[in-house]
């Protein structure tokens, strides 16, 4: 066989166009690929945050661009008992509500983790308070806490246990506890369902082994369930703290920060000053004053979650 090998055909390499050369250039490609994400972040995160911080240093009112006034807004804020009261209530509200939500949420998750009849349906029902729009919850609670028309007062009076209406939101401390109660009611499902998901990832063999070793129920919870649940507990708690601290709708719809500003959270106070009061600068300063608290909550989660022990149930070495 003497076939003359045809001269090997080589595809003529086309001269690369300038455009395709550009796209082959790695730095350019990187920039182009990052651009949409960076653009979104700039437009929807960095710009509003930056604007909010800038406004906090000006005397802007609604519709009138302000002058730079330095720290004046913050100086006034620190002298303002209403702001200090809002700081106190924000921390108190977040603290007590978080404890309540996690105590009851964990308990509920443990109950739901058992084999129950109609398990799926029960779990769906549990989620209801969380699915209902917050403002509807708030309106329902507004009626429940109404000084004249509260159904709870009505029941107590009908049963002859009281002669007057219960003071839910008419004075400072009852109003604070009432709002915390509403927030806990609303927050439990989120905690319960998240923790339930965590519970289901725990291997049953651990419990079997513990049973063989003759453990008690409390020991199984303390030495298996709780450590295994910690990673998800930490992240759910971080979210919960952030959501609670920045809560707005419940308080604004039920008390509007009253009676006499005693239930203002930083978020509602910032809104009250900024939008109805028109002082965008002061409102922004109050909003900015939330940042240290939120940074603290985020750092807490970062360092807590970075611990391998929590993630893998091993020692930290």
């Amino acid at each position, binding site marked *: 066989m003497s076939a003359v090998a045809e001269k090997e055909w080589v595809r003529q390499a086309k001269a690369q166009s300038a455009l395709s050369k550009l796209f082959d250039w790695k730095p350019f490609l990187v920039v182009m690929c990052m651009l949409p994400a960076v653009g979104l972040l700039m437009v929807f995160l960095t710009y509003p945050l930056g604007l909010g911080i800038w406004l906090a240093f000006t005397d802007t009112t*609604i*519709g009138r661009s302000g002058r730079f006034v330095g720290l004046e807004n913050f100086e006034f804020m620190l002298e303002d008992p209403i702001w200090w009261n809002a700081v106190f209530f924000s921390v108190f509200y977040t603290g007590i509500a978080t404890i309540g939500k996690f105590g009851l949420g964990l308990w509920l998750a443990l109950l739901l983790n058992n084999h129950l009849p109609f398990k799926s349906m029960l779990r769906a029902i549990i989620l209801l308070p969380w699915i209902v729009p917050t403002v509807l919850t708030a309106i329902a609670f507004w009626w429940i806490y109404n000084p004249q028309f509260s159904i709870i*007062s009505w029941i107590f009076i009908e049963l002859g246990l009281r002669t007057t209406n219960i003071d839910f939101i008419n*004075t400072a401390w009852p109003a604070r506890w009432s709002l915390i109660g509403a927030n806990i009611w609303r927050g439990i499902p989120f905690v319960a369902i998240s923790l339930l998901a965590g519970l289901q990832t725990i291997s049953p063999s651990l419990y079997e082994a513990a049973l063989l070793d003759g453990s008690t129920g409390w020991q199984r919870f303390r030495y298996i369930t709780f450590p295994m649940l910690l990673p998800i507990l930490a992240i759910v708690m971080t979210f919960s703290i952030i959501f609670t601290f920045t809560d707005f709708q419940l308080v604004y719809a039920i008390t*509007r920060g*009253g009676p006499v500003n005693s239930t203002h959270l930083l978020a509602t106070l910032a809104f009250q000053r900024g*939008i109805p009061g*028109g002082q965008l600068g002061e409102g922004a300063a109050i909003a900015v004053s939330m940042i240290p608290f939120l940074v603290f909550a985020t750092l807490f989660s970062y360092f807590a979650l970075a611990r391998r022990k929590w993630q893998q149930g091993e020692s930290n070495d």
Partner: protein
Amino acid sequence: MANIITRRSVLGAGAGMAALAAGGDAYAQTQVQAAAGVTAPTLPIENGATLRMLRPVRFVAPDEEVFRANCARFTQQTGVQVRVDFVGWEDINQQTAVTANTGAGPDIIVGFGDSPHIYADKLVEVSDIAEYLGRKYGGWMFAADKLGKRHGTNNWIGLPFGGTAGPLVWRKSAVNAAGFQTPPNDLPGFLDMCKKLRQAGKPAGFALGNAVGDGNGFANWLMWSHGASITDEAGAVSVNKPETLAALNYLKELYATFVDGGTISWGDISNNQAYAANNVFVTSNGVSLYFALKNDPATRPIADDTEHSFLPFGAAPSWPSAPLTLNAMVFRHSRFPNASKALLTFLMEQPQYEPWLNANLGYWAQPLNAYRDSGVWGTDPKIAIFRDTMNNRFWNGYKGPISEASGQANAEYVLVQMFASVAAGQATPEAAMREAERRARRIFRR
């Protein structure tokens, strides 16, 4: 709720025109006397003019229908297209602010009383049409004059369109049973009546919560009826005065007579609910409460037993109440200022204004004296008190000039919270007064 009225769509505006015609029939013989021989200022309408207007949403459906029909008729007569947007009450101040400061947006805003004073520099002066309307329709009423003219001048920057107020709303049977023909017009007598009503289990209740309308109205009445005010004539803060202290001490006694459960958490709607549920027998509110009761067969007996009267004057020479006023503004950025002024004049003229006023059933009262004779004021003797709403001699921020700060003090409930903290026993009257003074100084510092 945008509605663009064009020459063509006017033909389709049958419903509105029918409503207008119906309104016209009911009051076929107008009693409104327009002065003869007053000539309107000449306002040559710009070529190709189109107008956009914002106003607050209606109380009652015919308000919007007649308003749109009036604008449609303007389009018919002048060829100027008019688009009217109806904006929620909470939003109109913010939208006015943004319009004024961006120099873009509607040509005309029918906003609330204070707005023209806050944005005076951005507005077209409307003295020509205001003076013309005043001459033709028996003169402007006090509050209209006060809110229309720039402080201390005769230059009109706003054109008041209507006003409403919140008088004392009371149950005749309860007040009579307590031994009073009508609520006393002096402060000690009023307190005495509230005490007796409380003993009879038919208490009074006035909002002391963060309620923009009712809360501020009650707090203002407490201040003004004791001769106190948030600022003096020059606009300097004047809360820290013996008069304020007297008002606080009075409220302390009065609050003890209020409905069980208290009113410190009351919003704007709470007194309406409590009154309609036979929980509260004396309160203060706009006319809407009466109509809501009257139009519901279940509460009709309460409406029949309801009367309106002034809150006690106390130290004030007249009813201490600031009407909520609609105040129209024409913006400098409008390319068609003449068309804008022509439209406002047209809407204020008798063939348009009277049917509109009548359609509002008394929710809005006229700013011009001649319209006191409009048919609406003869329809129900119980709403007669609203007829002279615009003759009230008080305004938000009284005694000082109307400013951005006076609006802010209202929006931040400075006075309401001063009273509420004393009522709740959270602060002594002296401490509450000092705190209110501190907050007011911050707000009025500019």
